[in-house]
């Protein structure tokens, strides 16, 4: 199977994010490979181990390639970075257009991506890429079984209070959710090797994309202001002894918060 995996390096959940100006953030330099992308890489590797073929990790992040190296250290065969200064400030749809421009004439059976990137949490790029490539997609999968001879996949996706079982013809794009697998921890030796692995770099000209199709000129929904999370009033600690504290809590929930 020929599989492409979309990956991205994102701020660690522990990283602090500060509002620098209305439209500028200051993010602590503490990054990791997007949690859901690692699940996508793992799934691709398992399919390769079963059916043979090749796994390529792909990012459109012009700055960080660590997610590609993570992919290589886990066992991916090739790493590609689409890097162009014009990509700075692109929205997810522009990233999807760029990825589509690269993938449109490549042979592949499957594209895997994470359910969402843990930075803007949009969950757009993968699905929009499927639209651009005219591929079926299944979002937020927690089960995958490929039938190579029929060129189709049995997929399970998470929905509200249940699971949806689907059959989807290949090629297709699936976004991966926790529960699909547990990503392997790469061997130290492979991490060392991945540090030196060749990363193929492509710019927008080589993909035939005009700069006006990406970056801030192409944005249809733009941030006018960053805001801190809504502030809660300070916590009211109920300090009475048991069981009076329970009665007070119930009273406060009914009379003060009016939620019961």
């Amino acid at each position, binding site marked *: 199977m020929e599989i492409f995996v979309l990956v991205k390096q994102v701020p660690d959940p522990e990283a602090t994010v500060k509002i620098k100006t209305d439209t500028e953030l200051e993010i602590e330099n503490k990054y990791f490979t997007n949690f859901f992308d690692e699940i996508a890489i793992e799934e691709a590797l398992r399919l390769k181990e079963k059916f043979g073929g090749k796994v390529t990790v792909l990012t459109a992040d012009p700055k960080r390639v660590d997610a590609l190296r993570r992919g290589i250290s886990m066992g991916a065969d090739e790493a590609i970075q689409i890097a162009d200064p014009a990509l700075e400030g692109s929205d997810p749809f522009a990233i999807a257009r760029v990825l589509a421009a690269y993938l449109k004439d490549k042979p592949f059976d499957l594209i895997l991506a994470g359910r969402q990137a843990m930075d803007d949490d949009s969950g757009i790029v993968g699905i929009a890429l499927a639209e651009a490539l005219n591929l079926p997609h299944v979002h937020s999968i927690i089960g995958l079984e490929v039938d190579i001879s029929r060129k189709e996949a049995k997929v399970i996706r998470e929905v509200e*209070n249940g699971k949806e079982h*689907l059959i989807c013809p290949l090629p297709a794009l699936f976004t991966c959710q926790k529960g699909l697998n547990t990503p392997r921890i790469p061997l130290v030796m492979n991490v060392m090797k991945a540090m030196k692995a060749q990363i193929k770099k492509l710019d927008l000209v080589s993909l035939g994309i005009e700069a006006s199709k990406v970056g801030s000129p192409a944005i249809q929904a733009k941030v006018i202001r960053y805001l801190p999370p809504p502030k809660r009033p300070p916590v009211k*600690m109920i300090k009475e002894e048991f069981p009076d504290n329970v009665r007070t809590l119930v009273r406060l929930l009914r009379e003060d918060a009016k939620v019961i």
Partner: protein
Amino acid sequence: MSNEIWVLAEHQDGKVKGITFELLSGGVEFSKKTGQKVAALLLGYGLEEATKGLLPFADKIYLLEHPLLSPYTSDAYESALLPLLKDHQPSIFLGGATSIGKDLFPRLAMRLETGYTPDCTELSVDEEGRLTAKRPLFGGKVFAEMVFSGARPQMATVRNHTFLIHENLGKSAEVLSLPIQLDPSSIKKKVIKVEKSPGERVDITEADIVVAAGRGIKGPENFKIIEELANVLNASVGTTRAVVDEGWRDLKDQIGKSGKNISARLYMAFGISGAIHHVLGIGTCKTIVAVDTDPNALIFNYADYGIVGDLFQIVPALTEELKKILASEG
């Protein structure tokens, strides 16, 4: 241009989902400012009951009925909706930040080359019908206020409980049944089975009240006291990543960064220390109660009411107290 506010209706077993009523209530509120009509887009097959449910909540119902539209697939919905969206160019198109909205809207927005803001927690309009959307980034550490360029529709998916349902909107919708042609070959994926989770409870993202326990519950068998409290409150049961990783509860109940974001009216956390992964998922809950034995537990920083105490003592007492009070009210 139709200059309308559209809401994608979601329904299950004939019943319209709460999120749809919420969005229509929000849409009607907007329309008071903009003078626009509010329309529900109802897709599926066998829609009589859902249509009836929607009548008091919108000016119009666009009805798209076809066997291939049931059950939902993005393929079929997209094929049905794209020509309509291109024709009518509504001003605003809203959906739930649900397994349907988040699945479908990115495809539509990509094709229509229009703006889309996912997973919003606040929306407002000005007199000209320009939408401002607020949405959490980095799991809720920061929020972004976003506006749209000239392209229409302005598309957004919105979290449960962002708008209140208004029961008396004074509407009686005009039902417009639209002709629909679907090419079966355009529908590539097929739903073969929908497996419902056991039990009666609604999903934690949809629940009004969520009660949850963390590792402080000490074992999967002890969740029964949380379940009993949930029964009294008609709540759903959530949990933390640590508990799911232990295998004590199903992944679908996990709240937080690698799980689900909830916006419950009341959230009660028992034996949850308040790791950043978890609290990022509860930021938009209205009222938060925390009970933990550790007075320094981080969860208290995010709570409205806190008790330092043993959940094994407090939860059963709370259940009994609520039972008494709710019973006396009949």
